[in-house]
């Protein structure tokens, strides 16, 4: 990763700032744990475990991270003269980065077809806002973009996307409330082909992962998109709210099963929530985190970088 371009530097600074705000508490707790003289000190390890649990990584992952720290502290030869605090920080950074590095990446988009991105997730995670932010980014980089209002269920969801479309000057393909979302996707794909658009962002209705029939609806949307445009949807982004607890894992599992998730978006990282459950999600499903949201404006959607995230979490 090169950090010498000014734009990248700005993003990284923002990422750090965004995370610094959300991780103040975590850092002060972990910092305290590390500063205690480690022998390894069981009390310091307990404080570390608690700090990790408080960040929503879950009791199992917390225990694994603490074990890794314990092993490293005991290993005299491997520490190469590092101070306790640096050693612990480095172990944590390495472990967190490793867990957040996924082995899969979405398949390449065939040449000459519009890229179709499907946004999915449970209710209230920020799908519509994130869809608009992503569309704005693509549009600003000179691509021709379409928005598809496939949330035909929630009252005024179509209006909400239309307001964004008007603000950003992006065409919104929509039907009436209550219409078949797959039909909206069909029309959006046809429109994208005809207008030679570069990409289509599909906003879907929020659904709890336990509702079998609604999850099947996503499978249908996928089928229809794939019939209209080869390989579509090329990306399926699962939008997760940072306040989510360990239920995030269940969400990721079920949405991956029905909708074939290819990437994660972690929203609302500008509060105090840490979204630590992504450690378990990426590790189990090997799906990368693509973006994190740190605010309300279009610029507040950042590219995710596992190393920068790990450093921000541990260093502050």
């Amino acid at each position: 990763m090169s950090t010498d371009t000014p734009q990248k530097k700005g993003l990284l600074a923002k990422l750090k700032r965004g995370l610094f705000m959300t991780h103040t508490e975590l850092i002060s707790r972990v910092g305290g744990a590390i500063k205690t003289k480690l022998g390894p000190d069981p009390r310091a390890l307990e404080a570390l475990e608690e700090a990790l649990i408080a960040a929503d990584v879950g009791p199992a992952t917390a225990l694994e991270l603490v074990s890794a720290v314990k092993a490293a502290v005991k290993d005299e030869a491997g520490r190469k003269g590092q101070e306790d605090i640096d050693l612990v920080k480095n172990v944590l950074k390495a472990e967190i980065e490793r867990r957040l590095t996924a082995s899969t990446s979405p398949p390449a988009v065939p040449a000459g077809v519009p890229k179709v991105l499907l946004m999915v997730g449970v209710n209230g995670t920020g799908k519509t806002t994130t869809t608009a932010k992503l569309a704005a980014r693509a549009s600003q980089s000179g691509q021709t973009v379409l928005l598809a209002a496939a949330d035909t269920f929630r009252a005024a969801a179509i209006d909400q996307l239309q307001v964004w479309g008007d603000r950003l000057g992006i065409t919104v393909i929509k039907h009436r409330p209550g219409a078949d979302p797959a039909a909206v996707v069909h029309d959006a794909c046809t429109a994208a082909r005809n207008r030679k658009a570069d990409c289509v962002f599909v906003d879907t209705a929020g659904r709890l992962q336990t509702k079998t029939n609604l999850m099947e609806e996503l499978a249908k949307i996928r089928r229809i998109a794939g019939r209209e445009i080869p390989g579509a949807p090329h990306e399926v982004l699962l939008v997760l709210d940072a306040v989510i607890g360990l239920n995030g894992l269940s969400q990721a599992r079920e949405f991956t099963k029905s909708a074939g998730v290819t990437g994660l978006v972690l929203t609302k990282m500008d509060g105090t929530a840490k979204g630590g459950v992504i450690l378990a999600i990426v590790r189990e499903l090997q799906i990368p985190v693509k973006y994190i949201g740190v605010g309300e404006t279009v610029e507040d959607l950042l590219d995710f970088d596992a190393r920068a995230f790990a450093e921000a979490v541990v260093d502050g």
Partner: protein
Amino acid sequence: MFDSLSDRIQRVFKELRGEGHLTEFHVDQALKEIRTALLEADVHLDVVKEFTGTVREKAVGQEVLTALSPAQQVLKVVQAELTSLLGGAAQPLNLKRRPTVVLLVGLQGSGKTTTAAKLALHLKRNLNKQVLLVPADTFRPAATEQLRTLAKENALMCFDPKTETKALNRVRAAVKDAKLFGYDVAIVDTAGRMHVDDELMDEVAEIKSLADPDEILFVADSMTGQDAVNSAKAFSNRLPLTGVILTKTDGDARGGAALSLARVVGKPVKFIGVGEKVKDLEVFHPDRAASRILGLGDVLTLIEKVSQETDRKQALQMAEKLRKNEFTLLDLRDQMRQMRKLGSFSSLLGHLPKVGPLKELSNIDIPEDATKRLEAMIDSMTPAEREDPRIIDGSRKKRIALGSGTTVPEINQLLRQFGTMKKMMKGAPRMRF
């Protein structure tokens, strides 16, 4: 909600049950398991620590009661503590003043707008109140539209803010309207806000001073993790919260947020959102929830649900038909519709105790789809066929299968079952109601 937490905790007690004599060691072992179960259910760490500490103190120091086995004794302590943690008995809304102003606050995406409509419908239907919905979310695009649409679809009244873009002005005008037109309750739907956003927290505090609400309810997502405590604390520092509404409890979240929130806010969870439809709001009973978590069942809620959704007169008519053996396929369909109104079979069975003789029953899962398919078959029949299914021959079966999207064997099965039912009814003695 609570299902898998419930499973975990019951396993702990199953292991304890074998012990004839309970030592400190056993209690500690059990508490360690309960700690992990609670943490995995997203209960906040500090709440977990406090909880296990109190239970340990009470369970170990307790005098041995001869009537109870050691495991039962611990169970009793845990149940009492869970109930008190969740906030004791259910507390209804304070609706004495007219108009009563109810303020809904919370983070973005917790479900305030949907909940506002749900609460309005609940108050209208069950307490016969005239309710005015007030759209005070001027930030999220189309939030006002959303509330107005929900109101229109459910025959609820919604304040029309016209072109007013300031939340404060909207609330002022709406409360005035509520007084003028004699509404019983005004429910104010505020914008979602981050608790670290000082500017927006100031705004909601201003709305509070202006509207002088009787109830300020914190709307929170039941899937929230450890951070539930941070946001709830921040909101409750700025506003005198009177209760919590927990949303999206129809997912598979373990519901730990319910415990954390009640503890931190110091006010009980008053309602829970249990589905996507506007009627899907339930009064929350902490005592019953505690008993559900421990697998002791919640039969009271089940009984209330049945009596709320079924029509007594209709039930009596049906009984009469059964008695005279005039029960037709059409009646069968109506019965299934009534059952469906109660929710899925598995959610109903979730209210039954998971210990004792009914244990096996709670494992049965009848897919909602099955009843829908039966309904579709009956709907595809002609009136004559429904009246007397004996006339349904091979070609009629083919037509019904085509019309309902099912198969001939499925129709055979339905007819066979219906035949058996009729036969059984003939043999049954007169039922008394």
